Every structure is written in C-alpha cells, then in structure tokens.
C-alpha cells in the first residue's frame, strides 16, 4: 500500500465515514512542541502502486493534534489545534473560504475531537485546559463545558450507541463517563496508576471501553463492573498513545505507542497481542480503522509518514 510523507510530524489519522478511500491526517511541526500545523486530505490511489492523491491541505498557525470527520456532511471536518482552537473546514469550498469556522474557547491545547456518530449534529473536544466542550456546527460558542478532570484531558469519545454518552481519558489517571443531560460525570474510573492518553468504546458492546496509558498497558473495561478491568493488554514498551476498537470485530482493537509500534489485539483471547507492526521509525501516535472497508488500517507517527494497509499484510509492502 502507498505511503504518504507529511512535511510535519503526524499526530492523528482518520478515515472518512463517507468515502472508503479518503482520510484526513493531522500534523504538527517540531513534534508539536512549537510551530505550525497542517491537515492533509488524502485519497487512496486506485492501484496500490500509485501514490496518494492529496485532495487538499489546510495550514494552521499551531500544530494540529487531532481531526474528526463530520458524520453529517461528507466534506466537513473539524481540526483540534494546539492553540486551543477548533477549526472547521469544508472541502467543497476553495481554500480561501477555509476554515469556515474557528471556535476558540479552550485556553490550552486541544488534544482530541470526536464527532457524535449517533446524533451526527455535534462534536466534543478535549483539552489540556482540563475541560471537555460540546459543540454544534451552527453555534459560534460551545453548548457546554465539562470541567471535572484535574489534569489534561487527552481524549473524549462518544458512545457509538447512546447519543448523549461519552467517555473521557485524562492525565489525572481517571476515565470518566458522562451523559450530556447530566450536570456532572456519571462515572469515574481510576483506570490506571499513570496518565491515561486515550480511550475508545467497543462498537458492539456499549458498556465496554478500552483505555491506553503511560503505564504501557491497554485495559478493557466493562463500565458496569468497573472495579477490575476485563483485560489488561501488555506488550507495548512505552506509553500507549492511542487505542481504537474495530468497527467490524467485537474483540479486536488496535493501539499505537511511543515504542514506535502499532499493535493489534484480541482482548478475548489469552495471547491478546495478535499483531505488531514496526513500520514507523519514530513514535507512532495515530491509528484508525476504516468503517467502510473491513480490515483497512491507517497509522501515522512522528516520522512524518502515513501508512494505510489491509490487516494481515505488511504496511511496508509495496
């Protein structure tokens, strides 16, 4: 499969929910420590041997840490920018008209953004200012701010079944589950002893959620029995940066880590780690699985490369 070289360090990659060959990549200069950012919109080539087609790219004044496709409009995407802003881009408009929105409420770096897959009208952002904010496309200000975490919130993701429920992972070592209709969080899980960098809901069981931590482990939780994890997935050598449940398989998940590898897991089997990919040469920080094409995986890292491959094949295979 082809490889795409980004000028900046990769931070996040997301498949479009509308086009099976399309993906967005968030990048930041200087490892995201200081500098500009860029969002790339890529199309997979018709044949694996040809290069990616870059449909568009959008520059930002600060690093882009995450990106989320709109679930309602095929051309819209939201970028989480390190300067605390969220930028909304419309691919169908010329670059001069983009971004169509810049939402600046977070006082610190925005680390994640996630589009509501059920209601499809709203998205949440999580930030180093310890807060999570709820937004809709049509409002210039956030609907609500969720402020309970005591440290950076590295991820906030919607539940795939319940339109009002989301979970957040924070450096305060807790995972929190929220219902937008409730004033406060509905559940606090002290999921790790160390910072939690990522979380994702199981797409088949709406009570199962995975967390990834600086403690190098991925843990899978049933929030009904949250005192002990369903599974502890060890195998990464450094902090686990992102975790993602498969949209096609109930027990399959992917993770990427500061150990520069991307791992595939089946949390229901004993030897949970079923694959390890060492194709990145710097920290692997972004991984995604296509909803539209089963087994299609994308990853990016600080080596400024974006890989897309079919599960079971070598990402580096031509």
């Amino acid at each position, binding site marked *: 499969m082809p490889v795409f070289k980004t*000028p900046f360090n990769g931070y996040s990659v997301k498949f479009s929910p509308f086009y099976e060959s399309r993906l967005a990549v968030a990048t930041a*200069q*200087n*490892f995201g*420590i*200081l*500098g*500009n950012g860029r969002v790339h919109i890529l199309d997979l080539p018709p044949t694996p041997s040809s290069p990616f*087609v*870059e*449909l*568009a*790219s959008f*520059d930002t*004044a*600060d690093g882009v840490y995450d990106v989320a496709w709109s679930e*309602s*409009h*095929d*051309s819209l995407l939201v970028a989480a920018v*390190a300067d605390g802003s969220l930028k909304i881009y*419309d*691919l*169908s*408009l010329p*670059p*001069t*008209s983009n*971004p*169509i*929105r*810049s939402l600046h409420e977070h006082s610190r770096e925005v680390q994640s953004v996630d589009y509501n897959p059920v209601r*499809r*009208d709203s998205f949440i952002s999580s930030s180093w200012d310890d807060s999570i904010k709820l937004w809709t*496309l*049509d*409002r210039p*200000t956030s*609907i*609500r*701010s969720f*402020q309970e975490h*005591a*440290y*950076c919130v590295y991820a906030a993701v919607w539940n795939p079944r319940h339109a009002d429920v989301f979970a957040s992972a924070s*450096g305060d*070592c807790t995972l929190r589950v929220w219902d937008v*209709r*409730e*004033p406060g969080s509905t559940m606090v899980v002290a999921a790790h002893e*160390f*910072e939690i960098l990522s979380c994702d809901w199981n797409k088949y069981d709406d009570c199962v959620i995975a967390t990834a931590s*600086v403690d190098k482990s991925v843990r899978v939780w049933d929030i009904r029995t949250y005192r002990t994890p369903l599974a502890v997935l060890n195998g990464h050598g*450094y*902090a686990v940066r992102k975790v993602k449940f498969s949209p096609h398989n109930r027990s399959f998940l992917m993770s990427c880590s500061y150990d*520069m590898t991307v791992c595939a897991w089946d949390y229901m089997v004993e030897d949970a780690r079923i694959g390890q990919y060492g194709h990145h*040469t*710097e*920290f692997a920080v972004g991984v995604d699985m296509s909803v539209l094409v089963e087994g299609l995986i994308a990853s990016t890292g*600080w080596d400024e490369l974006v890989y897309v491959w079919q599960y079971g094949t070598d990402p580096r295979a031509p």
Partner: protein
Amino acid sequence: MDMRDLVTGGAACAVPGSSSSSSNPLAALANTLIGSSSKIQENKEIPTSITPSSERQIYTETNDHLGGLDQPFVDPNAPQHSDFLRGFHGSGGGGGQTELDAAWNDIHHPPPQLDHISDTHPHPQQPILDGPPQRMLSSLLHSFVDSSRGGVPFRATPLPVLGLSEGDKQCIRDRSSIMARHIFADKSEDFINSQVNALLCSLDIDGDARAKGPLPGRFRELEDYWNESQGTLKPGFHAADGWVAEYNQQRMVHGANGWASEFEQQHGANGWASEFEQAMNCFAFKPSTYSQLTSVDQMRGSNISSLAAMEQTRMLANTLAQNDDPKFQNSKFLQFVSKMSRGELIIDDNQVKQTALPAAGDWASEYQHQYNRSPAWADEFLSHGPDQWVNEFTTEQEQHGPVDDQWVNEFSKLHVHDWADEFGRQVGEGALGENSTDNWANAYDEFLNEQVTARQRSDTSRGVYVFSDMNPYVGHPNPLKEGQELFRKGLLSEAVLALEAEVLKNPDNAEGWRLLGIAHAENDDDQQAIAAMLRAQEADSTNLEVLLALGVSHTNELEQAAALKYLYGWLRHHPKYGTLAPPELSDSLYYADVARLFNEAAQMSPDDADVHIVLGVLYNLTREYDKAIESFQTALKLKPHDYSLWNKLGATQANSVHSADAIFAYQQALDLKPNYVRAWANMGISYANQGMYEDSIRYYVRALAMNPKADNAWQYLRISLSCASRDDMLEACDSRNLDVLQKEFPL
C-alpha cells in the same frame, strides 16, 4: 560594499535577536519545515488538487439530503437564545436538569445547511502564522538532530539566539513538560523534571508555574510539610510531587495558590513574580546561582540547573543506549531531547537578557567567573550549614546587580527559613549522596570546557577582530593586492589571510579592513565581518560602503538597533541625501523613521540603486519580505550586473519561502560570478528547502570544491546527506574527502 548576502541561509534574518551566521544553514532547513507560513498565501491563490466541478457535484448531492432542513444560525446575542444559552452555560456546575435536557434536545435537529454557515462567516480570518521564531527554532531542532547523526558534534561555538516570544516559550515549556511525562514514563519524576528543565534551560526558558504540573502524587513526603507550612494548599492533583516541585512550580506563579499568591496579595501582583522573572532572565545561564536557587532539588538528585541536569541526561543517554532497538537509537525526537538537555544548544545573549542585565558586555566574563568558581561553591555548599548557605546565597545574589536585590530580600523574608529548615532536614537524612555531588561537579568541569570556545566567540561578538594564528601572508610584499586577487578568485579563506596580513601591516587601511569584512561576510562569518568593518569605519568613518556593509551584517545578525544606526549613518553621510537626515535623530532611531527617510530618498532619486538596496535590507529587518523583494528587484533593474544583489534577492526570496524563485536569482548571481561560493551554497540551501536533497548536495559539493574551508557548507552538506539517506557518504563528508564527493555528486 559587496554586502554579504542578506541571509546565507535563509531564515537568519527572520529571527529577531538572532546571531546566526553559523546557524543560517540550519535556518535554511527550517524553511522546508515551516514552509507553510508563507505558503498559506499562495495556497489561497492556487487551486488545490480538488477539481471544483467533481467535488461540487458530490457536495450538491449531499446538500440534497439536507434540503429544507435549513436552520437559522444561532446568534448568541439574540434575546430568545441568550437566556437559553446562559442557562445552559450556567448549568454546568449543577444547574437544573430540565434545562440541560431542554437545551440538548433543542440542539437536536437536523444539521444546518452548509451554505448557510458559510454565508454567516463569509471569510473567517485566516490565522496569522508565526513565522520567524518558529523558523529558527525548527531549524535548530532539526539541524541539531541531523548533526547529531553519525556522532559529529553540533558545533558548540555558534550560539544562536532564538527570538522566542513569551508565547512560544510558554508552548515549549508546557508541551515539553507534558510530553516528557509520556515519553519518559519509566523514569522518576525527578528525572523527568530535570529533563524538561534542562531542555528549557538550554532554550533559555524559565520554568513556569503555568506549565502543567507533574503527575498526580507520586512523591508525597514533602507535601505534608508544605501544607503544614502553608496551611492553605489543598492536596490535589496539581499539588504534585511535594515541596520541591511545588516550589519550582510556584516560583513563577501567576495566580496560583500557595505562598506566591499570598505574597502577591501583600506586595501587589507584579511585585514578586516580575522581579523574579527578571532575576531568572539574568541568571538562567549562570548555573552556579541558579543551582543555589534550586539546591533543595539538588539534594534530592533532581535539579533545575542545566549542569546537574546534564548529568541526568547522561543517564538518559545510557538508558537509551541500553535499548537495543536501533529505532530508538535513531529516533530524531529522542536525540533532539537528549541533545538539547545536554546543554549543547545554548542560547546566548538573548535580547531579553541584554535588557535585564546591567551591562551586557560584562556578561561573558561574569559568566565565566561564575563557572570558574562553581565547583568551589559545591564544596562550600556541602561543608556549610543551611543558615550560612542562605546568607551566602543572599550575598551572591547581591553581587549580581540591583535587579535581584529586592527580590532576594523579599524572598529571604518570605520563606527562606522554612526552606532552610527543610534543607537541613534533607542534609540530616543524607539525601545528598556523594555520587550526585561528584557527578555534578564533573558536569560543571565539562560544561566549563565547552564554554571556552563560547567565550572566544563572545569576544568576537563584542567587536574584537580575531586574527588567525598562522598566517603565511605575513611578510608578503603586497598582501592587499594578493588579497584582492584571491578574493576575486573566490578563495575567501585565503583572501582573509592575505587581508589580515595587510591590516596587520597597515592598521589604518580602511580598504584592507573593508575587503576583509566582505570576505568574512561572503565566508559566512558575520561576527568577524562586523569586527573588520568596525575597524574599517574607525579608519574612515564616512565610507558609505562600510556603513552599508555594517548595516547589512547587523541585519544578518538581527541586531536591529545597530543595523539602523549604520544604515542611518549611510544616509547621513551620503552627499545627496545627507540633508534628509537630521543629525539629532541619530540619538533615538526608530525603524519607522529610518524607513520613512529612505523612502523619501527613493522618491528623491528613484534611479539610485543603492537606496533601493538599503530599503531592501531595511525590509528584511522587519521581515517584510515582499517589500524587500520588490526593492531588490527595483535595484536590479538599475544594476542588473551586481552579483551580490542577485544573491540578496535570492536570500530574501528563500526567507519568504519562495525557494524556487531564489534559485533563479542565485543562478543569475552565478552567471555573473561563477566562483561566487556563497551563491553556490545558497543554491544548495534552496534546493534543500524544497526537499531536493540530492540536488542540494551537488551544489554544496561544488561550493566546497571552490572553498573547502567553508565550514558551514560542510554542515549543510552533512544535513543534506542525512536527509537524502546517503549515509554512505557521511564518512567522506566527515573526512572532508572532496575527491570522493565530487565523483559521487558531479554537478
């Protein structure tokens, strides 16, 4: 004079307060990395690869789904919504459930039509991209990283100055702190702190309380003590790993809890914090002082001083070395962090520092003095009791000038006693191990040695011309003529020697000094160029070429005030424009005034290429590259055969990320002067900027074939070889084997 190209590499001009002849190559690299900053403008003009027709089609289809779902944009100020929104916002902390429900349901309607959104915000402001400081930073980061490959040490002598804004520093501070906690998760909190602080120290960034604190409590032992002494601070996640971290965090506090804010209440918000900040600016690079501030950390094996942190970094290096995975050995990020932490990147003479220091000129010697006496201090430190230490601390602080006095006194009044007690307790517990002290002292020595070269450098920066040791041209019958000849041939380093012989023989020969200055400038050494030009000016204070050259060299070094002074001097001594320049203005020069005067001069005689050249230089000073390019282009219409002018144009274009245009300009310069080494190297830089490393290598090799002593070009070459994955040729590069390189990379 043939001013040395504005920017040998590119971004040098871009950074305020940068002294960077030697970092220029690095700066150039940055353009590639930061390309976006000005490309954004281009992007707007150039259609992207989306073909509007097909894309529009898809889009329209999508809109069809949404037909009739149009919904007015919610104006937060509209009365019917404002109440609602307020209620919503207010409810976060426990507002009415029903309100929330209502609000959430309220927004639950079909998505608005996109056109509508766009109409409401027809052309949102594109963010202004910060160019220059980032440019320099990334050049540093990456050149650092690149130069670290293969074990060739990053040259310690060049001490580039980053014009980092407070915001930038904040970013680096915060982000590196947070990231370090992810990356060095295995290490102790102390280690992480020292890593981060060493990095910050290297970049001349103060630690800051606004940075996110360390992880939730892993070290509690001092926290109780702290709370006890404060009675105010609640243990919480931010309360972090105890007293020391708390202290570190708090010392720059802006509105945090604890004693700093108490102090603020007593003394006004700007009292302590700003004084401290000033003090820190002064002392960030006086590690002995700095260490004293943080000696409690020292005792725990963690410390903020760059020196002790270097020891920690060696530990990191060892840890990394133990990791067999070659990927880790090659990780640019880890190399970067490690290199930075090792203090190999030192930001010297930052503008901020200059203003904070009573006498910037004395700084270097004072600095050295600090280093010399530091190991002694370490011993004293151990043998004396805490009280004495506090006194010593206070006295030593006082020696450093008025800025600190107040702070020290206030600080002493405040909590020094608690601190000293704590300190004593730590000593009693033997927390200060033998090893850590020894290592620490060693680190000092090592650092000291590294500074010797740095000191030499700073001598030059003070305008003292440094002669070469062995000069075969001494005793030459006519070194000036020889020097001119060599210069014409492009053998700059040789020309420098011959001209040095000339000015040794005739110290008042303005022409000798001037040409020497030019040779240095073309040889990419602006410090020496300035020193030589200053001598030329001494010999002939109204020489227009010399004044212009000094203006350009200072522009290259981003010393705006000095550059303005000479450019203004040029105007004042010019027979035609002298009347424009009122002499009283020279006491307080502002950029705007000088620029205005030159614009007047340009209007007065639009056909004088020199005026346009100076304007171009001035615009470079403020990084108005488009205007600078325009000025140079105007000048070129009048003086199409001035090769150095073409080079200036190219350098400016490269600076503004028009590397492709720059290549054309350099080509013009080379057509006019085929042995113009500088332009060959610049050409290479421009290719490298565009990611065409193979091409850049050929140009560097060509430049080096003409002047093998162009040290910077060797560095650029090395970087390009790494980037082009031609590690096989690195050895040839390191051994400076031009035969091999020329064979491999013919132009």
